[in-house]
């Protein structure tokens, strides 16, 4: 209801030509507070990640053992290192800014790999049903029976931690939700008469899937993508915290938390700062996901 209240001043006069789906979506987007907040927060983080070299004056790897554990400005530190320095005297702001790159990259690449695997499986299962569906459902069940963190730990322990390994492991593990949701969404769309009409009009199978099914399940895909992106980022942080994710000295937020944990009682900001950053990133992604669902499929909102 708050939305209607917020929207009412901008409502168009009665009797206006109906909008194209895209225009209507844009209009809903501009009125959605969550979307605006999520996009802004996300925008800031992406901006920092891209322009990290311009925004920082130190390298995230340069140690300065004479300037260890300098507190950030708001805890009485100096402006030279405004977020302080860590136990090896590395500029905390630099590490945070470069760490955003790692988190975003992991999130985007892992979610992309999952999206491709999950949506192909889900759409095929939903479209064909029968044996294909049974096979895919079996695969989904197998995957759901695997504890993600445990498998990731084991694989990383075997192959050694690196960005590539972490991304691929997470990508290969997080496709289940894509498959489940797209399978049921496809089953619904498949029953609609425009799909039958396309088949009668001689459309080939790939064409039907590409033109009639995919665009109509796309909103689900986008929403799950954001969820899994956040999921992957958190998992990466967890793996890094356990020492089995991205390896030092790469600046990763999870690693920063891990490195700060020994000083938890003395210099809590070593953990708080990357923790808050992680929180903000995941929050913004989740808000974006919710907002995209509202904007693309207004009928599903209650």
């Amino acid at each position: 209801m708050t939305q209607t209240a917020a929207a009412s001043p901008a409502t168009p006069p009665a009797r206006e030509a109906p909008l194209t789906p895209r225009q209507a979506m844009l209009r809903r987007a501009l009125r959605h507070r969550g979307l605006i907040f999520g996009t802004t927060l996300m925008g800031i983080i992406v901006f920092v990640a891209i322009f990290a070299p311009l925004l920082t004056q130190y390298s995230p790897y340069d140690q300065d053992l004479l300037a260890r554990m300098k507190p950030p400005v708001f805890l009485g530190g100096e402006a030279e290192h405004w977020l302080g320095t860590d136990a090896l005297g590395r500029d905390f702001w630099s590490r945070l800014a470069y760490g955003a790159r790692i988190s975003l990259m992991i999130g985007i690449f892992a979610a992309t790999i999952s999206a491709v695997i999950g949506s192909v499986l889900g759409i095929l299962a939903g479209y064909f049903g029968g044996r294909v569906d049974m096979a895919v459902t079996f695969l989904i069940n197998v995957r759901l029976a695997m504890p993600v963190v445990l498998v990731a730990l084991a694989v990383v322990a075997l192959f050694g931690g690196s960005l590539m390994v972490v991304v691929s492991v997470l990508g290969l593990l997080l496709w289940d939700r894509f498959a489940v949701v797209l399978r049921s969404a496809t089953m619904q769309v498949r029953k609609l008469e425009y799909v039958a009409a396309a088949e009668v009009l001689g459309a080939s199978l790939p064409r039907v899937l590409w033109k009639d099914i995919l665009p109509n399940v796309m909103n689900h895909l986008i929403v799950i993508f954001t969820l899994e992106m956040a999921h992957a980022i958190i998992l990466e942080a967890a793996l890094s915290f356990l020492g089995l994710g991205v390896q030092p000295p790469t600046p990763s937020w999870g690693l920063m938390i891990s490195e700060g944990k020994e000083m938890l009682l003395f210099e809590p900001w070593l953990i708080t700062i990357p923790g808050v950053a992680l929180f903000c990133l995941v929050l913004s992604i989740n808000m974006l996901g919710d907002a995209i669902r509202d904007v693309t499929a207004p009928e599903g909102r209650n």
Partner: protein
Amino acid sequence: MSDPILSIRNLTVDLPKGGDRPHAVEALSLDIQPKEIVCIVGESGSGKSITSFTTMGLLPKALTPSSGEVIFDGQDLLKISASEHAKLRGRRMAMIFQEPMSALNPCYTVGNQIEEMFEQHTDLAAAERRARTLRLLQEVHLPEPERIYTSYPHQLSGGQRQRIVIAMALALDPALLIADEPTTALDLSTQAQILHLLKELREHHSAGIMFVTHDFDVVAEIADRVVVMKEGRIVEEGTAEEVLNRPQHPYTRLLIDAVPRRTRVERDSLDGRPELLKVAGLEKTYHVKGNMFRPGRIVHACKNIEFAVRKGETLGIVGESGSGKSTLVKCLIRLEDPDEGAVWVEGTNIAAFSKRALHPYRKMIQIVFQDPYGSLNPRRTIGDQLVEGPVNFGRDRAEAMARARELMKIVRLDPEALNRYPNQFSGGQRQRICIARALMVEPKVLIADEAVSALDVSVQKEVLKLLNEIRDKMGLTVLFITHDLRVAAQVCDNLIVMQQGAIVERGTVDKVFGAPSHPYTQQLLAAQPGQGWDVPDVSKLPPVSAASGVGGVV
């Protein structure tokens, strides 16, 4: 006349800003007497359901009554609180909905659900509640009340479910019964029984009934008084006899004129024309898989179907839901593979072709579906969807687009509309777009699968006219699938009547309607509502007098 049970005075309900008009219902006044059935008739969007929802206090939050009063039991329903309104519902006023399945809770037996009415509003003992429930089940003519009592909604047929809903509504002998399109989702013969039941209730109970419908034949069957609504206003009001036979307002005349006649337009003889489509020995069975708790079932959806259609002929396939017409259609367009039998199109048997071999023959048979909202892809422009067919069959895209513009003109839509998306069109317009899409590949046979069933009567009339025109102009052969005998009578040359997967009757329209030989056909014809009503020829009525033009000229 006694005091009215319900009296609506000057009711105005506002629509949210940005709608197509400022008020859903405007300055509406209406009385319902005890033992009276008042029919509110109108096309979709006329505000008839809003009127009934306002009375029941079930308006969606976005709509608010802005002025007027609804007097019931001596109090204004617009002024009482939601909880007071809730107390009235069920006890003093009750509602029967269009879709009985969604009005019943699938988790409880229907007996429990009826008993709940007593539990909520009275303090009867358990045994007495049960006895009353069984009596109600008897009153709505359900066979074996004891068995029905312990059944779950999904174990009953649509008609039985609607009877349960009616029994629930009657449980506490309410003073007002609101029925919102209660028979629209039902088969013809079930509809006849439910209408009969409602008429009986009028005699035995003192309730006033507000009956919302779009179907003038149902009105003719059941109404004492009729209120015709258009765009939120009442345009005509009077006794059923007056309104049906001497409609005064131009809009009422337009609606009555659009009611499908039982007589058809004479056409040239079809003798000597070549057979275009021939179906022989078509069989289709579905195997419903069983599980641990339920044995599997075999549904024989098409049994030895045989018929032939000549070039330019319109063949009507009539049957109730579950008669196998949809399966037959799916086999003809090869969305399903028939188990046995042959389908000859211009001498080629396509029934057993592989997908690859079928491809060039796909365009011979095209189809227009029932649901105007589900048959266009919401995320593609109209033009993109129209050229889909020809492009799939190897035509040049630009050439196809030119053809699409031409066809849009033929179905009387603006060719510029090709750049727009489906959500910008009304139901009738979408159905025309679907017809154009089917015609894009120049089919020989056009199947109209309940193509006009979801449309308002006036729109229905237009689309039927268009279909007829196109058939004559392009020499199309049409298979017209419908459950509506009136529509079938109007447009078809020959008829096939299907029941439980088999053809039980066939012949010319005159023969099937005039001298039906199969008991099922006779039963279907007898179940038609409004048979006692001779639809007046609107063009022969005296011109509208100036005084009666309440809502302006249509």
